[in-house]
């Protein structure tokens, strides 16, 4: 990229390296780096690897449910798959995938040369990886088997005497601690490392979602670390936090864990919302319909979403007033989420939509999330929740929202920023195949699940009995999950292939308007040679306008020459020959 134009503030020289870098193998550099881009790549790659595991576990469970009273997988193994799957999909894939994108993109977007606490960021990643490895190391002896959310007393030593639940606790606890540490790093970066002029109201929308998601993860993750520590004390050191017989309360775990899982849900969705907002603006060629309203809605979704954790506890023995509070928080979410949908559609309206892979996935994400959140709206009304919570109907809503947010929304962000990360684009044809497979798969899986849930099929069962149309519903849902898995694997293969063999492309392939496209692809370790002054919500567009203005109004400066020599010189020049030095 050529030097930035001079309408910007003069270049501020900055010392970015104080010694000649030692020559080390690439993997050592990557593994010891505190650079936000290296950590972003590590987070994204690890999260996608865990996504493959989650998909495998989902497919295995759906294979078991193809026919009634199936005996392919034993109840014990099914319980282990189920317990590992829940932690993998949300804790080891959903949150870290969002954090990885945030880690890579946000410092670039705000014009920073790095994060505030690079080593803290690295510590966060390695804690998360340690958590994931701990959880999967349990497959060497005994995996966890106390369910997606291991509720005490089932998860206490009386009913789960093997160490499986301990690996769940330690794995999820370590990962949650890693997220908290990483969120501290990102929030401090957002607070202190913004480029000159990058005030909060000009902060790009994805960075807004990173700020909101960061605070949500900070609070919810800390609660989960505490909850895991308490359950570990109960199991290993005769604690009684969750033991009803000794004055503790099993309900306490439900509050703490649901607070975390709700926070995870909110953080994943908010990050997806931020990425979708950026992608829609870029690919419609328009500014976001209202930058301020979208940023405000993202903050409101984070704040209100966190308050709605008891929406998962309608059937628990808690005072009815608390469920009214949860219903109020959940219904209040209608306003910011409705505003987001309105602003997205208004951003598309009147634009010139380039239907490339990122936009396609973003549109699919909005569509799929609309199914999930409309379902959540219905289930948030208490009597409907009493009837359908804990059935596959409610689970279908969660699948819609999380596949829409983490998979379609996350993949949209991956397709969008992949050229920045690697300097290459991902294949468009495979992207389309993957998109349609995911979209068809998620509907084919979720709609029969709704129907089965209405007929009384609860979640998490390893077998069902041949009653009514349950066999048909589960067969279709299983086939749908296979198609969904195929779609997910297509995009992952696309990314793996394109990382080395994709079409090489410039620094700004999509004509973005935010500062990450100002850096090279992939960016150098210090991100920017020159940090631009920010004067609006579309800083790169301002730079482009300034460049165009300069180019169009540029005139060659008057040449000062001795008048006597002019005739001979000009006749030489008119022939077009290069001047001889």
């Amino acid at each position: 990229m050529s030097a930035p134009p001079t309408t910007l503030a003069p270049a501020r020289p900055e010392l970015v390296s104080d010694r000649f870098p030692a020559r080390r193998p690439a993997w050592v550099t990557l593994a010891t780096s505190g650079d936000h881009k290296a950590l972003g790549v590590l987070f994204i790659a690890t999260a996608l690897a865990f996504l493959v595991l989650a998909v495998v576990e989902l497919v295995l469970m759906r294979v078991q449910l193809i026919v009634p009273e199936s005996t392919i997988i034993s109840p014990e193994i099914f319980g282990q798959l189920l317990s590992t799957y829940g932690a993998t999909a949300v804790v080891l894939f959903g949150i870290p995938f969002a954090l990885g994108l945030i880690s890579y993109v946000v410092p670039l977007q705000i014009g920073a040369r790095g994060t505030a606490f690079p080593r803290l960021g690295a510590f966060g990643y390695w804690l998360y990886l340690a958590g994931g490895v701990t959880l999967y190391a349990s497959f060497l002896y005994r995996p966890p088997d106390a369910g997606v959310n291991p509720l005490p007393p089932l998860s206490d030593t009386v009913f789960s005497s093997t160490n499986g639940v301990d690996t769940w606790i330690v794995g999820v606890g370590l990962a949650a601690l890693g997220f908290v540490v990483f969120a501290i790093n990102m929030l401090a970066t957002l607070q202190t490392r913004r480029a000159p002029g990058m005030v909060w109201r000009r902060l790009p929308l994805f960075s807004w979602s990173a700020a909101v998601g960061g605070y949500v993860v900070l609070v919810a993750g800390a609660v989960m670390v505490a909850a895991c520590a308490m359950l570990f004390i109960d199991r290993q050191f005769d604690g009684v936090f969750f033991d009803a017989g000794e004055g503790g309360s099993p309900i306490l775990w439900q509050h703490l864990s649901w607070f975390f899982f709700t926070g995870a849900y909110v953080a994943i969705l908010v990050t997806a919302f931020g990425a979708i907002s950026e992608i829609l603006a870029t690919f419609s060629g328009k500014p976001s319909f209202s930058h301020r309203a979208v940023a405000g809605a993202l903050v409101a979704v984070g704040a209100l979403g966190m308050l709605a954790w008891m929406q998962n506890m309608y059937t628990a023995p808690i005072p009815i007033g608390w469920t009214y509070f949860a219903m109020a928080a959940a219904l209040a979410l209608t306003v910011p989420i409705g505003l987001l949908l309105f602003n997205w559609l208004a951003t598309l309206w009147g634009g010139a939509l380039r239907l490339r892979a990122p936009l396609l996935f973003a549109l699919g994400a909005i569509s799929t999330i609309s199914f999930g959140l409309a379902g959540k709206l219905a289930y948030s009304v208490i009597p409907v929740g009493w009837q359908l919570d804990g059935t596959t109907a409610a689970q279908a809503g969660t699948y819609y929202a999380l596949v829409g947010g983490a998979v379609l929304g996350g993949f949209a962000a991956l397709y969008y920023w992949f050229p920045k990360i690697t300097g290459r684009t991902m294949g468009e044809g495979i992207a389309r195949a993957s998109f349609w497979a995911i979209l068809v798969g998620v509907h084919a899986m979720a709609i029969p699940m709704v129907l089965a849930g209405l007929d009384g099929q609860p979640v998490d069962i390893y077998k069902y009995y041949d009653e009514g149309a349950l066999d048909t519903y589960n067969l279709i849902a299983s086939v749908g999950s296979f198609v969904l898995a195929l779609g997910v694997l297509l995009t992952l293969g696309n990314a793996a292939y394109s990382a080395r063999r994709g079409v090489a492309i410039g620094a700004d392939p999509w004509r973005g308007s935010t500062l990450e496209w100002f850096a090279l692809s992939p960016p150098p370790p210090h991100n920017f040679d020159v940090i631009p002054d920010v004067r609006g919500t579309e800083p790169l567009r301002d730079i482009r306008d300034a460049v165009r203005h300069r180019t169009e109004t540029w005139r060659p400066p008057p040449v000062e020459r001795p008048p006597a020599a002019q005739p001979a010189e000009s006749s030489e020049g008119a022939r077009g020959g290069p001047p001889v030095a």
Partner: protein
Amino acid sequence: MARPRTKPATSFASRPGIAGFLGFALLALLVLPSAAHAAPFSPEPGHSPNADTTTTIYWIMFAVAAVVVVAVNVALIGAVVRFRARRGREPARVRAGRRVQPRVGALLGVVAVVIFVVGIVTTTQVRDVAPSGPEGLEASSARTAQLDLSLPEGDSEPLRILASGQQWVWRFEYPDGTFSFYELVVPVDTTVVLQLDSTDVVHRWWIPELGRKFDAVPGRTNQTWFRADEEGTYDGQSAAYSGAGYATMRARVRVVSVPEYQAWLDQQGKDLQDAQEAVQKRVQQLGGAEAGAAVAQGAAE
């Protein structure tokens, strides 16, 4: 479709993306409203007053959700069809005016408040314990009671049954001390208050036709109620993961007439007593407390 016809019709079919989106929209438009009145999307038919209320609010919320889904998806597809980039189209760089967002927000807020009020009203209806009907075990005067509070004293106590969850079966204890496993037998048209507790882990009581779910948590006794309006059997299944055998933790409610219920209760009591006497006789035959402990242990296992 208000799509400007600037291109020949053939180019339309050559765009699989748009065709796919349109097909999807048509599918959603056809399936959702027509299915709303067909069997698949309807919950299990209610056979208890609280289940009937639940069905009503379910249909209201189903309609709201369907409107949201259809509106969002049709608008998305409309935007893609109308505003797809083509030669000569310049994006209109418009931004929101000052008044748009507050208005949209206020509209959404009103919708949320209305749903909240309807939600509170129906929740109260579901929780109010209805009195037993005329054909019930104890006909009573009209009165209601909140479950969190103690039921008011009167001549019309509902039938209280203790339902106790354990891995992986429900145990029902009737007022006279008789008990049964798996199958709960109740008289028709009688208000039954179930007192739920658990001897081990968290279980979740649910009979789809007879109203709400409720958790059975060790250390707490929770109450739910139903009043079956028709004789028959209603099946349900625990809906909270409780370990390896969770999928087999089913329950059946058999609703019978009042005389049948009385007869069943007597027979069950007699059967239980006979069984206990048989056990005692066996213990005496084997002789001593040691054998008794062995038998008891065998029964426990």
